[in-house]
């Protein structure tokens, strides 16, 4: 289902789209681990981010977590409807639950990210 996606160890996913744009979201594992979501803060469109930099926040009844950019680039679009319907993150984390779209500065940065099976073993090692 997610073969064309890559993952950051901080639980964001990224998928390259045509026209040099990448969509970023939060993995279903992370969404489940956060439990009941109450708030999300998105960045301004046009903001430049570096790989590993926090670009937003997600808050559950238990904790507040940062959202980290998997690659460097410019935020070109945000899913503005998402903060008002956080349940979408749980229902469709890799589709309707996308968070931002980034125009990456350097597509080579994708290489250091995890593929699905590497991410799966990352989370199974974390949960032990």
């Amino acid at each position, binding site marked *: 289902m997610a073969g064309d996606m890559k993952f950051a160890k901080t639980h964001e996913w990224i998928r390259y789209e045509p026209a040099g744009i990448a969509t970023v979201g939060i993995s279903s594992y992370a969404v489940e681990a956060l439990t009941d979501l109450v708030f999300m803060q998105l960045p301004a469109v046009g903001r430049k981010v570096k790989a590993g930099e926090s670009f937003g*926040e997600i*808050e559950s009844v238990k904790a*507040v977590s940062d959202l980290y950019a998997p690659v460097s680039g410019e935020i070109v679009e945000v899913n503005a409807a998402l903060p008002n319907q956080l349940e979408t993150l749980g229902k469709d984390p890799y589709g309707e639950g996308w968070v931002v779209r980034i125009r990456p500065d350097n597509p080579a940065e994708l290489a250091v990210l995890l593929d699905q099976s590497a991410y799966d073993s990352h989370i199974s090692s974390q949960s032990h």
Partner: protein
Amino acid sequence: MSYLPHTADDVRRMFETIRLSGGPGDMESLFSGIPSECRLKRPLKIPVALDEMELESHIRELAGRNSSPASAVCFLGGGAYDHFVPAVVDQLAARGEFFTSYTPYQAEASQGNLQVYFEYQSLMTTLTGMEVSNMSLYDGASAAAEAVLMALSVTPRKKVVLSASAHPEYRQVVETYLANLGVETVIAACPSGVLQPQDLVQVVDDQTACVLLQQPNFFGCIEQLSALTKVAHAAGALAVVAVDPVSLGLLKRPGDCGADIVVAEGQGLGNHLAYGGPYLGILACRESFVRRMPGRLTGQTLDRRGNRCWVLTLQTREQHIRREKATSNVCTNQGLLALRSSIHLAVLGPQGLREVAESCLAKASYAHRRLLDGQRLSARFDQPFFKEFVVRDPQSRPNELVAELLSAGYLAGVPLGRWYPELDDCLLVAVTERRTRAEIDGLALAINSLFVSSSPSHHNNHAKHSVHQSAF
């Protein structure tokens, strides 16, 4: 059970535990690890012990050396004021349920405390014209610093503009908080006693996170607050406004003048001067910044039976959960003082607060006129003021003047030279509703008589001196 530590019995049992007999050499052997050159080889030079009766009279004698508003007529201000505290505030706040309670670690177990904090928050939002208030911070200065950190996190920019007319100690605390954060601070000069909007325009830019303003300002003068907040907003900066809560009985609320974050020292609302603390930091802001707000927040909700109840809100952003990414390092509040301010405001009501403010204004205006009527002092700033004003001593001896007036029974004011070298001939005088006409007249006469007795041209003029004496 003994309440004294280290009774002979305790000591014996402790020695037994570490398998020593407690014999004569054993106590010495406990200290054998400390090099002999580090050890004191004589008895401490302390006086013999006093019994309770002697100790009480000794402490009373020491306390008697303090000057306080109880022993001298207080015209001191500069952030802490001798406002009247109705007895009901002391009486209710001293109830054991409030006075001895510390917020339990399960805060919701103490619904009474949370209800007080919720009411405090509601009073503060109404008073300031803001949408949310926290449960209080340490004092006005730390509230100002926390507000600046909030603005840096909201915008996010790296420059802060501080009005020179904002409390110099608040600015010092702000600069301490920012010392290692790579933030540039710029002081906006106020040569006319207020910050002119056109001067503010010169120092704010697209990197400015916020402007720290004070209303009435440190000199007591009334700023053109709406015009100043407009300048901040035009640059995309937030307006952080420190206010005197008592002045809000008369002045337009900062929230109605464009303030984004309002801070205040709450001492004047039902809290005694108490030699400088503990005081009460008030912080309120627009709802859109609530997730960047430091400190604790009480929220109102319903329990499972549908009854109204209170809970701590947004704790996930506090230090004990979010660690280094928390909104601040403050996870506590000045609960007892917040309670006192809540009782105080509830007792006064809106009309009472207005009357206190009107009384301060009228008495300060009278005092200003009386002090300038004499020959010693002159005006410094030509600005409207609330309960505090700056006067100039053309002899440039404000510190000596204050010392001389203290022996005459007056805490006359705060010399400004230690913060403002250009104002080292100036004195900040505060007049609250507690000052009587006789006290104000007395201060004016005392100043005048000092002028006559210390002015070189009149120094030995006993005839002139006695004329002034007779005016008492």
